[in-house]
């Protein structure tokens, strides 16, 4: 019975501190960005670079760009992947797109940055980009003869569409909001003004919270602050208002829509405020962040007038659609991670993946392939592993393999490009993920960058050489 209560408490505590700490300043703007990309950027603006006539150095980066800009959910990935493959861009860019999309989209990257640290987010995007293009090129080379037989259909790519300047500015402002809310730099964190809110009960209230949600540095459990409780309450209010305010925004902008947006701005501003419990009440700190977040929100308002009302309604509707699709999965995922954490002993993780060895990296990859987690849930899981003592190298190997490979995505891929190609792809991803983990782990352990660059170049050269030899044998 005790263990059951402990597990439940672990789950709730993990959920509470997750909602209070990670969601607001990173995921809320990220959802709005994802909505804007989906509603305001014409997809043809990017896919026209993928046509059969486009040179390689355009089509591969464009495929990666399409992955990070257009595809935030799997329902967009599947038709786009099939489209890119069947309409002529060919296997290579299609594979690049498939590989990069789950790891390189704005939601995954911003969430990784906040939960695990900016270095993991940067490692994730750099490794995913270079390996995505690498794997795409290897696949294109391996199956070159099949490729020649397929006729490209250039018609799908000619449609001319540009991204309007106002959309770029709008998305840039949203990205600035995301960065201002999450980036850990001095001038944003520097206190500008400090004051005290008299509230004698504050100490007792915080003590009660600490009892319910104990912080434990050893297992990475974060406590829950008074500010966090307020933010969770505000999130609940936003959810209640958004259900009709954003859910039905495509028929009309109602008063509830404005209530939802005002509450969102208020919540973001409150999250950017520094609050600390002292002897006589709450110490309030205004920082650069506290100013930057509301200012950027205010900068959005005049920009919305430059769009059609319909475009703005679409933007809010898409944003809410992403929230409804991804948020419940995240909540359940984070809760379960909290439950599981109670049962896992740090020694187990340290024994399997505590050091940057080949075996440890392979374990990370295998775990990533066989465990299927919904979009973004890989991040809290990675966070749990990290706090339990997993080495950063195997962690990156896991982060590379998990979103790219799951039984479901393997089946979809196989249906579109055939079994042989799909399994070759799986093998390559496993190989590359392991290499990525080993490289990043060695870098964290202090190996020099030049040595690592040489090792990676050698690895890729060996791979390409082997493939060439195999190809030539087949030709004879």
């Amino acid at each position: 019975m005790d263990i059951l209560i402990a597990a439940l408490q672990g789950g709730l505590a993990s959920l509470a501190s997750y909602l209070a700490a990670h969601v607001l300043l990173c995921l809320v703007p990220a959802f709005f960005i994802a909505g804007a990309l989906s509603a305001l950027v014409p997809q043809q603006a990017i896919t026209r670079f993928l046509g059969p006539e486009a040179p390689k150095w355009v089509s591969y980066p464009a495929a990666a760009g399409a992955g990070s800009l257009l595809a935030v959910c799997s329902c967009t990935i599947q038709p786009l992947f099939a489209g890119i493959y069947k309409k002529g861009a060919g296997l290579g860019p299609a594979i690049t797109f498939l590989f990069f999309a789950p790891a390189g989209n704005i939601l995954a990257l911003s969430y990784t940055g906040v939960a695990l640290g900016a270095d993991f987010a940067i490692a994730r995007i750099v490794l995913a980009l270079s390996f995505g293009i690498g794997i795409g090129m290897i696949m294109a080379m391996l199956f070159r003869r099949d490729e020649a037989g397929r006729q490209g259909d250039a018609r799908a790519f000619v449609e001319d569409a540009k991204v309007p300047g106002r959309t770029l500015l709008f998305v840039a402002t949203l990205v600035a909001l995301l960065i201002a809310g999450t980036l850990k730099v001095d001038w944003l964190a520097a206190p500008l003004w400090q004051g005290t809110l008299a509230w004698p009960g504050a100490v007792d209230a915080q003590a009660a919270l600490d009892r319910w949600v104990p912080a434990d540095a050893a297992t990475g459990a974060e406590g829950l602050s008074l500010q966090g409780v307020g933010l969770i309450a505000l999130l609940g209010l936003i959810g209640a208002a958004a259900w009709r305010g954003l859910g039905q925004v495509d028929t009309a902008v109602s008063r509830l829509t404005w209530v939802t947006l005002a509450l969102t701005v208020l919540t973001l501003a409150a999250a950017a405020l520094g609050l600390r419990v002292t002897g006589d009440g709450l110490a309030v700190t205004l920082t650069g962040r506290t100013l930057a977040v509301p200012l950027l929100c205010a900068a959005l308002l005049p920009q919305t007038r430059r769009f059609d009302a319909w475009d703005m309604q679409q933007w809010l509707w898409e944003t809410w659609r992403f929230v409804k699709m991804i948020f419940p999965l995240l909540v359940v995922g984070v809760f379960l991670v909290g439950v599981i954490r109670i049962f896992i002993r740090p020694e187990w993780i340290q024994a399997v993946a505590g050091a940057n060895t080949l075996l440890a990296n392979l374990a990370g990859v295998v775990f990533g392939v066989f465990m299927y987690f919904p979009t973004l849930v890989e991040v809290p899981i990675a966070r749990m592993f990290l706090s339990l003592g997993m080495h950063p190298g195997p962690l990156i190997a896991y982060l590379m393999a998990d979103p790219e490979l799951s039984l479901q995505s393997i089946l979809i891929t196989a249906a579109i490009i055939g079994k042989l190609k799909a399994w070759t792809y799986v093998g390559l991803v496993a190989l590359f993920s392991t290499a990525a983990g080993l490289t990043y782990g060695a870098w964290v352990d202090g190996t020099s960058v030049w040595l690592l660059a040489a090792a990676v170049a050698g690895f890729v050269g060996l791979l390409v050489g082997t493939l060439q030899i195999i190809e030539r044998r087949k030709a004879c």
Partner: protein
Amino acid sequence: MLIKILGTGCAKCNRLEQLTREVVAELGIAAEFAHIREMDRIMEYPIMTTPALVVDEVVKVAGRIPRKDEIAGWLRGG
């Protein structure tokens, strides 16, 4: 008039069908609807992105949800 909605059953695709049906009702046109969900048949059209609206075998829009007055224009033969 034959109206085809191309889409794999995503939220946007259903929304496009709903909007188009509303426009057809408002204009009082006689139209037959088909919602194409199979990837292979969608790919027979020169589009890369769903949802797409096809009126009498001509692709009118792909990859976004059009405004109702845009749809009305296409259905009137514009």
